[in-house]
């Protein structure tokens, strides 16, 4: 990175630290923070969408749809979520390969499950074994994102379901009195009003989502935990930057990163709550109205 980093063994003190923290592998480490942020940026809206679909399905008048919605929202209760994380990653991978296998190799006659093996034809492997490394990594990442979205979607469905119920009944009755259909009342009255009731639950969920990101490590993605473990391990003098076991300090840095992230989120969410309470028939909204008057 810097000019003077050409010969690390000659360095000492601050220049050594500067060179050490800017060498190639550390840049990968910093990039993995980006991975976490990308995961959050994709997962949050997708799981909110899943949650919305799940919550509306559990309100549906069609029984099978309602059961499906209720099952989805009830799924995550009572079972540790990490079980879902570990389960979905393999199950999803196998499901995709199985479907691909059915399409590409229709004349394959051997069974797919042979004892302890799961065998599909070469052309059905996802990604293809000849694919470059980055394709494998991206595929893993998106499987992980999808898993997060399914699990957190179920949590979000729980929250949204409660929020839809919390909208005052009188509002819906008024909509009916105006002759709105069920669909119109849902989209024009219920959905715009439910967010303020959903916000406390959703902000809690956001905090939890942040704190769940290190689980990416378990899903085989090279995330910050992976790099912290890699970089922190002791290096002998054969390496350019020898040091003892520093994993403790790397994880301390991660701890500080997460604490900072939650603190910032707390401040931002408090501000959003204030914005959304504006003009609402809730205690918060009422307090704002009185303060203004």
């Amino acid at each position, binding site marked *: 990175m810097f000019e003077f980093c050409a010969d690390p063994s000659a360095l000492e003190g601050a220049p050594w630290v500067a060179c050490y923290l800017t060498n190639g592998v550390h840049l990968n480490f910093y990039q993995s923070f980006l991975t976490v942020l990308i995961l959050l940026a994709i997962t949050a809206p997708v799981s909110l969408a899943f949650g919305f679909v799940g919550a509306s399905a559990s309100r549906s008048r069609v029984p099978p749809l309602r059961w499906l919605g209720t099952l989805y929202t009830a799924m995550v209760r009572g079972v540790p979520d990490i079980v879902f994380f570990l389960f979905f990653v393999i199950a999803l991978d196998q499901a995709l390969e199985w479907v691909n296998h059915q399409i590409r190799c229709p004349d394959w006659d051997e069974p797919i499950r042979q004892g*302890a093996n799961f065998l599909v034809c070469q052309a059905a492997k996802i990604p293809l074994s000849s694919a470059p490394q980055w394709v494998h990594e991206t595929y893993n990442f998106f499987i992980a994102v999808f898993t997060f979205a399914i699990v957190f979607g179920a949590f979000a469905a729980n929250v949204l379901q409660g929020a839809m119920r919390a909208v005052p009944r009188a509002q819906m009755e008024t909509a009916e009195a105006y002759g709105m259909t069920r669909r119109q009342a849902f989209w024009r009255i219920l959905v715009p009003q439910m967010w303020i009731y959903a916000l406390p639950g959703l902000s809690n969920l956001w905090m939890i989502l942040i704190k769940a990101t290190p689980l990416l490590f378990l899903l085989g993605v090279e995330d910050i935990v992976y790099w912290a473990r890699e970089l922190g391990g002791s290096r002998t003098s054969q390496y350019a930057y020898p040091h003892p076991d520093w994993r*403790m300090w790397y994880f301390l840095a991660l*701890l500080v990163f997460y604490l900072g992230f939650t603190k910032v989120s707390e401040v931002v969410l408090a501000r959003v709550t204030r914005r959304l309470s504006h003009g609402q028939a809730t205690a918060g909204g009422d307090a704002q109205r009185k303060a203004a008057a």
Partner: protein
Amino acid sequence: MSCWETVQAYALRSLGIGERLLPRGEIGLCEQITLIGSGLIWNIYFGALALFFGFFFAVALAVGKSARARLIRKPAEWFIFVFRGSPLFIQFFLAYFLLVRLPDEIVIGASVTDISWLTTPFARAWLGALIVLFLNTSAYAGEIFYGALQSVPKGDLEAADAYGMTGFKRFRRVTYPTMLRLAWPAYTNEAIFLFHATTLVYFSGFPAFRQQGDALYYASYFADRTFNPFVPYPIVAAYFIVLTLLVILAFGAVNRHLNRHLPTERRARLRYRPNLIR
């Protein structure tokens, strides 16, 4: 091997009693149910002990956080913020590397006396992870108790004043029982999620010593071995649903006891509201 023989060989495998090697070759339903159930012993051990010790510390934290003196309030606030604001997963890793490294640092600093007999248990899951879980649940429960402490009805405290109760007597007789009663439904959820959080122990820094792990450790072992996630994970899920129901049952009994003096319609109901991952 018949199923009964499997149960005899593996039911206490997670504690190191019974067969040394994990089942290889033919892995049936019986092996999976037995061994995963055996791993559940660790989940119950971690959950129950952390919950028990954490309760007392949590009450202390809640009282500390609502104290007027800055010197008491600030440490309690920071403790709760650090443990609630960071992922448990990272806490496990940090604690593990801290507990593994610290002995070396001490030895270098002082003398060459071997203190490994004292420090090795801390680097093992049974003690090290238990301490992390204890601190973590204390912080979460401390926040719950703090919230309850803030919503103790003013009238109750005024009545205590009227009776001339002050200091510790007032806390023990009036504040504490009401706090506990108000906090109990939320505390039940905390207990459930603490049990769920125990599945993280063997997936973080703490290694499973001689393949003695918890329920999820064995489930993922089977999933890797048979390459079939559709059997072991539902088994874990079923075990945990039963465990969750037992926790709700036990805490529900305590809840009824705490609310026994109230008219029926004013009693706080236990509502299962997940707090999810930490």
